[in-house]
């Protein structure tokens, strides 16, 4: 079974530039998550989708971050304009249904450095 796919793996951009990350979840998984993990910290939930609807985006900085999952399968996370403090690993994850009783599988992450 193919895992959660993410791209690009690494990205270096200057502050005020924009960047986009792509995620393809495990086939058949209805729930997709984007987490931000800053070095030395636990993953922080940015947004959770159930199919193509948003379940929770309370911690997404909406002035600069946006995410979509138009057809209920793959998803894109965009940052525009980037700030230095956005340097982090962006983890995409998916689960069959919601997180309550289902295993959440993580992709390898997209490492962002903002200089």
């Amino acid at each position, binding site marked *: 079974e193919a895992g959660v796919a993410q791209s690009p793996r690494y990205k270096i951009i200057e502050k005020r530039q924009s960047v986009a990350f792509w995620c393809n979840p495990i086939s058949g998984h209805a729930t997709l998550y984007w*987490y931000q993990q800053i070095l030395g*910290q*636990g993953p922080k*939930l940015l947004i959770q989708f159930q199919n193509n609807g948003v*379940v929770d985006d309370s911690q997404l900085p909406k002035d600069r971050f946006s995410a979509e999952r138009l057809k209920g399968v793959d998803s894109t996370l965009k940052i525009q304009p980037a700030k230095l403090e956005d340097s982090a690993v962006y983890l995409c994850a998916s689960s069959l249904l919601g*997180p309550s*009783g289902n*295993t959440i599988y993580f992709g*390898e992450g997209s490492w962002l450095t903002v200089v």
Partner: protein
Amino acid sequence: QQPVQSPQAVILREGEDAVINCSSSKALYSVHWYRQKHGEAPVFLMILLKGGEQKGHDKISASFNEKKQQSSLYLTASQLSYSGTYFCGTVNNDMRFGAGTRLTVKP
């Protein structure tokens, strides 16, 4: 609200035991445990559901006390491969992770 994990770090010798604790201020539906090695994605260990259950595989087990909103991860007779950062994820409406416990197992 993020769960609180303790301790922040622990160093063991091979064969020693460790306990990692996770507590939440919110009512929980379930608790997930993950291990992450440096530069890699978190890897699922186990889920504990409401009902005060305990689970385990090999020498790693966990308990969940829903009334106290707490979970503990038990590592018995630790191996070098157990080294990494352990995160609990607590589920209310979504899943929030603790700050992690860095476990180092030395020969």
